[in-house]
């Protein structure tokens, strides 16, 4: 019933396919962290870590915010959840509309039957 766009899946899976990036997500699950902190923690250059965070950010798994000279990373809102909620809003509206439409068509059918009987009499 609910289908997700392939592009979002691809971005998410690509982001999750790297052991460092999975480690970063785990780390951010415990606490927000600066890129410098993450680079040290994962024994990596600042540039290297920036690249990883960039990929996670593009997939919507991480958001970053620069305050002063420090860029802080935190877990992003899960894009799949967001997308599911987005679809669900459409679904709710249309399911409700179509239930009402069912009633209208039911009534038209009944009316036609009655009119048909009247005519045949």
């Amino acid at each position, binding site marked *: *019933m*609910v*289908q997700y*766009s392939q592009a979002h899946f691809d971005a998410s899976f690509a982001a999750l396919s790297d052991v460092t990036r999975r480690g970063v997500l785990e780390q951010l699950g415990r606490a927000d962290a600066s890129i410098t902190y993450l680079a040290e923690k994962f024994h990596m250059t600042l540039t290297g870590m920036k690249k990883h965070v960039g990929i996670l950010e593009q997939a919507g798994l991480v958001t970053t915010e620069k305050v002063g000279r420090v860029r802080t990373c935190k877990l992003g809102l899960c894009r799949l959840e967001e997308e599911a909620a*987005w*679809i669900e*809003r*459409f*679904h709710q*509206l*249309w*399911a*409700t*509309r*179509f*239930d*009402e*439409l*069912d*009633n*209208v*068509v*039911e009534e*038209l*059918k009944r009316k*036609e039957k009655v009119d048909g009987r009247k005519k045949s009499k």
Partner: protein
Amino acid sequence: MDARRASEPDLMKRTTVERKSEREIVVTRTINGPARLVFEAWTKPELFKRWWVPKSMGMSLLSCEMDVRVGGRYRLEFSYEGSKSAFFGTYKEVTPHSRLVWTNEESEDGAVTTVTFEEKDGKTLLVMHELYPSKEALDAAGTGAADAMVETFAQLDELLVTLVV
């Protein structure tokens, strides 16, 4: 065969929503009635206004004008807690009992909507396809529509409070 028939009522009432691409969304539903009656419910304002704005949406339809022919226009006016809004556009294709295409012209983010009516065994499969001018417009239509409305009204409420004070 019998098993399929037994599960039919449930399947029939199922509304599916699928985002086909960045700019397109497709909604399907089977209605228990022949296409000519379903088409009538989409094209006669007195019938259309009974289902297009479900009561649970909390909005009421003030007026509904529909000139259902190629180049004809439609206009729906709503009210919600004292605030009014209008939806309007033009019919691009009108093929009785099988196909309707219209534009939505309130803003440049409006979609082109195509509805097809496919009758089988006295039931009608509705396929509604909406094509938006951009990914952003469709994104906003999902998150926006209901929420934006609520927000606007919340703002209006605030405004009214300040006016009353």
